[in-house]
């Protein structure tokens, strides 16, 4: 299979869907000739023109609002939000308008839009360009949330998102834009709410999202060398969540660590751990552990920033303790 970057995969998904459906358009800051700062959209304006690859002023609430109205009236906008951190600027349009319109109208109106944005620290960008805020939107009923973990997922989930009749927020990890993965030539879609077992194992389940899937896979390698068999599962979408697959795996292994780059408190890791506790309690041989980003604003200094996100060594160390049946005192390990 050919290998392409995550950036190319997203670009292909958008181009294919725009060719297929003329109501699809892209709107955001510097999306046309500039192709965004990450160059994900390069070439699209040449094919589809400025009417469908629409550069806006720097006015996030404004273009988000326009996208909501366009979606309600027959268009399928793909909103490009340059950094996930800017989601705070568009909260009213996303959470009060887009998320609630279908429900408040008793099902008469719908808002088929995609909000493309990103997450992920360790780009040395400091606290306002490094956050992973997907838990905030996952908290709001009416929104769907996808977290691609590779180029393959990025393409398949994007195409599904564009065809979905609800507001979908896709968070790409900005460190992964240049990472390659096998992506088939032929068209494919990845359904929402279907988790992917990346690696099978019997001793512990590592549930990981977005770039943390790679962290979990590396941790599983470390553990395998020690004779511990770890299963790695990527939920791919956190709303809807493939709860059944996660529970099935944990019933098999009796232990789990949930790894996600959002802040640990009140986050995705807490939510998933809580569901496992509720629905697989009598199958647990150890507490379900959460590993999220530290509850601090992301620091600028590399010496500090790297301490804030889970690492393969940290995951492996915690897994080792769980499998050994050690008492945990609640202190999380973020880095080895």
């Amino acid at each position, binding site marked *: 299979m050919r290998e392409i970057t995550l950036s190319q995969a997203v670009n292909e998904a958008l181009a294919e869907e725009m060719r297929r459906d003329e109501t699809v358009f892209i709107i955001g800051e510097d999306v046309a000739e500039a192709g965004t700062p990450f160059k994900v959209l390069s070439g699209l304006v040449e094919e589809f023109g400025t009417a469908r690859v629409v550069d806006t002023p720097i006015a996030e609430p404004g273009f988000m609002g326009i996208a909501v109205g366009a979606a309600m009236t027959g268009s399928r906008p793909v909103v490009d939000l340059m950094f996930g951190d800017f989601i705070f600027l568009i909260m009213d349009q996303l959470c009060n308008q887009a998320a609630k319109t279908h429900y408040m109208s008793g099902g008469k109106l719908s808002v088929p839009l995609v909000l493309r944005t990103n997450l992920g620290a360790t780009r040395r960008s400091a606290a306002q360009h490094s956050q992973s805020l997907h838990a905030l939107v996952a908290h709001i009923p009416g929104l769907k949330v996808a977290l691609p973990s590779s180029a393959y997922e990025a393409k398949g989930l994007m195409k599904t998102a564009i065809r979905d009749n609800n507001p979908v927020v896709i968070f790409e990890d900005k460190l992964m834009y240049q990472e390659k993965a096998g992506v088939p030539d032929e068209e494919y879609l990845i359904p929402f709410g279907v988790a992917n077992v990346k690696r099978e194992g019997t001793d512990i389940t590592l549930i990981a999202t977005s770039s943390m899937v790679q962290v979990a896979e590396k941790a599983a390698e470390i553990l395998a060398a020690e004779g511990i068999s770890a299963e790695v599962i990527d939920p791919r979408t956190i709303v809807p969540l493939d709860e059944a697959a996660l529970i099935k795996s944990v019933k098999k292994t*009796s232990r789990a660590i949930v790894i996600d780059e959002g802040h640990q408190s009140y986050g995705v890791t807490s939510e998933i751990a809580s569901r496992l506790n509720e629905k697989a*309690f*009598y*199958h*647990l*041989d*150890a507490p379900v552990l959460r590993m999220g980003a530290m509850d601090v604003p992301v620091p600028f200094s590399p010496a500090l920033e790297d301490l804030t996100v889970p690492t393969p060594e940290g995951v492996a160390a915690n897994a080792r303790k769980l499998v050994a*049946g050690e*008492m945990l005192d609640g202190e999380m390990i973020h880095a080895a």
Partner: protein
Amino acid sequence: MPHDVIMPALGMAQDTGLIVSWLKKPGDAVKTGDALMEVETDKAVMEVEALADGFLAAVSAEAGDHVPVGQVVAVIAETADAASTAVPASNSGAAEPDEALAARGDTSSDTLPSGAEIIMPALGMAQDTGLIVAWRKQPGDPVAASDVLLEVETDKSVMEVEAGHDGFVAAILADAQQAVPVGSVIAIISAEKPENAVARSHKSAPADDGEASGNAVAKAPPIAAEKPRTAGVPASGGRILASPKTRRLAMEKGLDLNLLVENGVPQPYHVSDLKLLETLTPSDKTAGAIPAPASAGSLPMHIGARIAASGCDEFIAWLAEDGDIRLEPRLIWLRFAAAAFREAAGLGDMPLIVETRTVRKTDGRFADADRSRLSKPLSDAGDELPSIVLRDLSGSPITAATGSAPDAPVLTVCREREDYAVSLDYRAGQLDEDQAIEFVTGFVDRLGEPLRHLL
């Protein structure tokens, strides 16, 4: 039809309005928009306007009265003649008495005396119901408008509600100590002395029949209260730190975690500790071997019972004829055994595996057999260890059997002419005596009267 003049809800947090003065007198001609009275609320005085043309009539509250919001204080009659006999439109009831009552949450179809309706007032901000502390008047009593009719408790304070109308108590529609939704009609005051004054309890209306006050029904439907569940582990002494899975497996295998404590194994316990525990438990894996007397946890116990087979036989025949469901009797007993065990052991929603055996072989293992319908196939529990074993010897000449129950309690059913002989063999560590007796009793009860327990 006359139009009601209602004490309006004006402020955000207003319960009553004070009538400062009437600007029109009974019998006066009024036009839509004319100021009828001045009302003081939230420290502001405002005029209440007429909403219809006509003649003011049936003024039931005077200047100086504090009137609950929503209460009718007068009517506007269409003609001067009608004004002399007018009653509030919502009370007249002539055209559609049932609907008018239904709209206020009373679905009873018997006729009520006509007259002014007294409504449970909305007094607090977040108040859905008011508790009637006491009625000060009885059905048939004469009342004056300013007489206290009842006491109502809301938001922790008790207040007196005045009759608001001169006349007679024609009906009392709620009992003292009854909580009644705000807006419900709780009494009727008639102008004439009633022949048969009515007294009865308040009946709530179903939520979807168009009750008048939207606020009162905007609540979520009540959720049936869950019965408190007892812990799932029968017979354990002291508090032991063990993972949930360890506890479950220990229970299923009839292992006692106390033995680990006694042997000095450090806590917390995990599944891996069960291997050691199994060696500590004096268990007799070989059927027929004499049980070791060492530990109380391994003492074999036996309970026997007998019940007429006719109940179960008739039920199975009925299922086949009327329901077209043909089942091995064993598969019905399986459900009874699971239900009785779940109840006796206080398992709540925990998974429950039952193994069935016949004369020669193990028949199957089923998960939560008591939670599946008769017409649905049972879910196969695969290799999971059973919590109890059901042994069906009804097809054999055996009429009684006692076993060693090494892994789990064994419930044996034998047929003896017109009876079933039921026995339970278990070990002291698997169940305590009360649970065992409750289990057998529960099972035999079900066997005797299957319909009562299934339907």
